[in-house]
């Protein structure tokens, strides 16, 4: 497939908004082509243009898309169906909505083999073979299931099976692992890698995740605000970027094993311009530290370089590392917190069960009341000025832990102590002073701020109520609060709809800090943000902690982010802490077998570097029927024997308060495990960022 000067637009009122402009791209057999960009870069639009599946208000505004030498625009609907759609396939981002809820999975796979909708024993056999090929162990059972009865990972495997059914010449993968847990993501990526290698088809892999692209792709194009800014072989792009934007992206991702005391992330200032309001000249110029006057006036062309293309006049300087595109940032500006700081928040044996309703029949039979055991046994301690990172996959109970600690949900058992005082379980029973001292920042999303209230009103309320700021001073204090999260004072007048995602999250952080809390709980607070914005927030959180001395309970599924920010880490699985200790100890052997699998699954920004692969089988068990013995025994790759199934594992204590709940002694674990990423950090990135860019 070849794209020549492709521009795609969406209808807005009477005009057209060009979401993708002038993209040339060639997809060849056997090559996996990565398309990376942040939200708003136009990568998904481009993928849909490639597949001819733009929504009704989208249209190809310029250029040609050639498939096997024929211009797709010249095909009629029937020809397009036979000669194009039968030869291309898509693996989409959300597996469940992409499957028809009313048909059994087997039928849908058969339909991919024969779109006329017939069902023959022969087709059924082929469908089963396909399901087996994508690693579904029991194809008979899976084929008879409806999509909603399967886990997210299995659904995605079904879609991959359907995509492969027609032996496509071109396979488009649109963020296929974005909504999956990291361990599931790793197995899906392994599968895609193997299948692509075996079939030799052309692949277009669209993702916002640099790590995933680095793991999988041979060649990578970087998209920014609808334009391709760089295109190069993966090994080259990640070690020697030529465009300042690529460089900036690489600098803003926390690497596994780097910490805030060693590294300061370097975010890209500003935000992606909307396609309705593009700057004159180079689209990246307003955010580019290298921009000169020429950049703001004329658009640079996509220039051929050795091995690739780049849209920047100053690329030789970037490549040679002569022009550090960013302001030099002193490495590790943040000093380590005091080792002997007192504990401000102590959680002991916290549990939260959501009882299920019993049916009338069960009630009459006197059946025991069953419950979703979201949190089984979590003990944590957050020290003044320290950050405790809580890591786990979805369903591990980390969000419920946060809500129970805060009293938004009343805990079923266990105690929460703030500054030594035990707190009532329900928020409404807690004294105002306790509420003030313990605050929370939610997952960054559009729900964080009330869309009907201005920023000033949102911030002024807690200032007056919790911090006791008199009304006359409120406006001034709101402005100071905004400045403390690096937003202009004028933002008090704005409404949430006028803010970008990162700005909204800054306001949410300011709201939590307004009460001047001792402890802050962050629940996936940076997960929804683009990497360049996330970096700025992470830096901000580090600085605010330094200044205010608050203790943080930082909850995330992202190990690199937790490793970057946390002093201590606790790993949770099915509502239990399985490993805890100083961040450095948790991130190096000996590992809990679950932590080992988690770490091994994290994609690294180092194409071509081999490392140990530890993969988990099956799905996380239901929290209604938690396995007995060690809860991890159903999936543990290092299962030792019947004691794992029968007995709860003992806590095994290492130095510095490092502890692992496992039947295997620490020494034995240490002897069989290897460090899962370079010597405490990812392999150094040579080039412009070698100093301070990495650990």
């Amino acid at each position: 497939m070849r794209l020549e000067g492709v521009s795609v637009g969406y209808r807005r009122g009477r005009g057209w908004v060009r979401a993708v402009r002038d993209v040339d791209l060639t997809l060849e057999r056997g090559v996996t082509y990565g398309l990376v960009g942040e939200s708003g870069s136009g990568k998904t639009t481009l993928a849909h243009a490639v597949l001819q599946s733009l929504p009704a208000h989208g249209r190809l505004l310029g250029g040609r898309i050639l498939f096997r030498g024929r211009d797709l625009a010249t095909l009629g609907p029937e020809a397009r169906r036979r000669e194009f759609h039968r030869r291309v396939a898509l693996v989409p981002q959300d597996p469940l909505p992409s499957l028809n809820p009313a048909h059994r999975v087997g039928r849908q796979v058969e339909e991919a083999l024969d779109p006329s909708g017939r069902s023959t024993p022969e087709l059924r056999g082929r469908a089963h073979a396909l399901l087996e090929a994508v690693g579904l162990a029991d194809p008979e059972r899976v084929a008879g299931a409806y999509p909603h009865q399967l886990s997210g990972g299995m659904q995605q495997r079904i879609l991959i099976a359907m995509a492969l059914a027609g032996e496509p010449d071109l396979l488009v993968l649109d963020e296929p692992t974005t909504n999956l847990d990291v361990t599931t993501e790793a197995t899906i990526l392994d599968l895609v890698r193997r299948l692509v290698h075996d079939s030799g088809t052309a692949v277009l892999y669209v993702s916002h995740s640099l790590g995933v692209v680095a793991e999988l792709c041979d060649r990578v194009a970087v998209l920014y605000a609808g334009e391709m800014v760089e295109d190069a072989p993966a090994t080259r792009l990640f070690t020697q970027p030529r465009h300042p934007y690529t460089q900036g992206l690489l600098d803003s991702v926390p690497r596994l094993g780097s910490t805030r005391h060693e590294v300061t992330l370097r975010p890209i200032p500003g935000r992606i311009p909307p396609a309705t309001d593009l700057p004159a000249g180079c689209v990246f110029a307003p955010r580019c530290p290298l921009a000169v006057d020429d950049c703001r006036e004329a658009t640079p062309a996509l220039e051929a370089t050795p091995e690739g293309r780049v849209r920047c006049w100053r690329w030789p300087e970037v490549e040679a590392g002569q022009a550090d595109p960013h302001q030099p940032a002193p490495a590790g500006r943040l000093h380590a917190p005091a080792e002997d700081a007192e504990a401000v928040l102590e959680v002991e044996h916290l549990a939260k069960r959501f009882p299920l309703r019993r049916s009338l029949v069960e009630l009459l039979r006197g059946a025991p009341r069953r419950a979703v055991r979201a949190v089984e046994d979590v003990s944590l301690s957050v020290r003044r000025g320290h950050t405790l990172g809580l890591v786990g996959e979805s369903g591990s109970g980390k969000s419920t832990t946060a809500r129970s600690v805060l009293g938004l949900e009343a805990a079923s058992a266990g105690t929460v102590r703030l500054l030594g005082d035990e707190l009532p379980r329900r928020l409404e029973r807690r004294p105002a002073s306790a509420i003030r001292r313990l605050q929370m920042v939610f997952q960054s999303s559009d729900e964080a701020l009330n869309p009907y209230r201005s920023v000033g009103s949102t911030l002024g309320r807690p200032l007056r109520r919790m911090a006791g700021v008199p009304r006359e001073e409120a406006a001034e204090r709101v402005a100071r609060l905004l400045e403390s999260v690096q937003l202009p004072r004028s933002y008090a007048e704005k409404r949430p709809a006028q803010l970008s995602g990162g700005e909204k999250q800054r306001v949410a952080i300011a709201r939590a800090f307004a009460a001047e809390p001792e402890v802050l709980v962050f629940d996936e607070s940076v997960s929804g943000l683009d990497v360049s914005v996330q970096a700025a927030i992470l830096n901000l959180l580090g600085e605010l902690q330094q200044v205010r001395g608050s203790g943080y309970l930082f909850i995330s599924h992202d190990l690199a982010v937790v490793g970057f920010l946390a002093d201590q880490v606790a790993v949770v699985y099915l509502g239990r802490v399985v490993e805890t200790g100083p961040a450095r100890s948790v991130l190096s052997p000996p590992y809990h077998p679950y932590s080992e699998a988690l770490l091994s699954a994290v994609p690294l920004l180092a194409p071509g570097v081999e490392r140990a692969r530890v993969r988990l089988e099956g799905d996380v068990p239901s929290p209604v029927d938690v396995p007995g013995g060690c809860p991890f025994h159903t999936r543990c790759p290092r299962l030792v024997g019947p004691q794992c199934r029968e007995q709860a594992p003992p806590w095994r204590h290492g130095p510095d308060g490092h502890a692992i709940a496992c039947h295997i002694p620490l020494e034995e674990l240490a002897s069989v495990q290897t460090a899962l990423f370079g010597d405490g950090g990812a392999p150094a990135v040579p080039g412009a960022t070698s100093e301070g860019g990495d650990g």
Partner: protein
Amino acid sequence: MARPAAAAGIVRRRSGAWRRLLRGLYARPSSALGATLAAAFLLLALLGPWVTPYGPLDQDFAARSQPPSPAHPFGTDHLGRDVLSRVVAGDRDIFLLAGSGTLVAVLVGTLVGLAASYRGGWVEEVTYRVFDSLLAIPALLLALLLLGSLGPSRVSVLAVIAVAYTPIVARVVRSVVLDTKTKEYVLAARMQGESTAFVLGREVLPSVLPALAVESALRFSYAIFLVASLGFLGVGVQPPNPDWGLMVSEARDYVYLTPWTLTFPALAISLLVIAVNLLADGLKRVLQVGDTP
């Protein structure tokens, strides 16, 4: 922030929202027509007595069963009453009965819905069980039963509308509250120790308003429908009041003699209901509220 400035800010924002709403409504011909017609009917209801040539009950025996003429643009009925004056007076009645009935239903439904569904637990359970059983009786049947016991009067008609539509409004409110109360900004407000009243009024209510506006318009159109039907069946507003449904019913007997006595009230009902429906449809589009069965 000084108080007056803040107040001015709020006023400015509110009027901005109104302007946006109007601009949205007038962006499409169908909702523009609906809004204009509905406004015209409302204006007529307000100005009624000052613009009509005769009183709605005035009889002119000399001019019985007259076809439309300059003196009586809509003609007169068999008792010599001016049809135009009666239609205009009926307009006022409809807004008074259907309008205030709807208003009561919306107010009570919103308050009960907000409080019960935010609190949850058995209060919510009981409230909505009662509402559900009210909804298990078809609206007109419920209205007839109530009128049968209360006896036909204008107050009964108003009460009937309120009773019949309160559960429906409460349901709409509930669906939004259940969606909103787990939103992070509501949790954030709770974590600032805000009272339930504040959370409901300032954090939850604004998200309910769009759906509520659409529902109110829809309810109003059904209320007009209901009042007219009751009048037609002879169990609502009683003669000699100028109720549109009643007028149609009375005119049926004279349809050969004086077809205009039937045409004009029937036309008035149809136009007003269609106008309010178009308006509700436009509101739904502008405020981006989804279709609900």
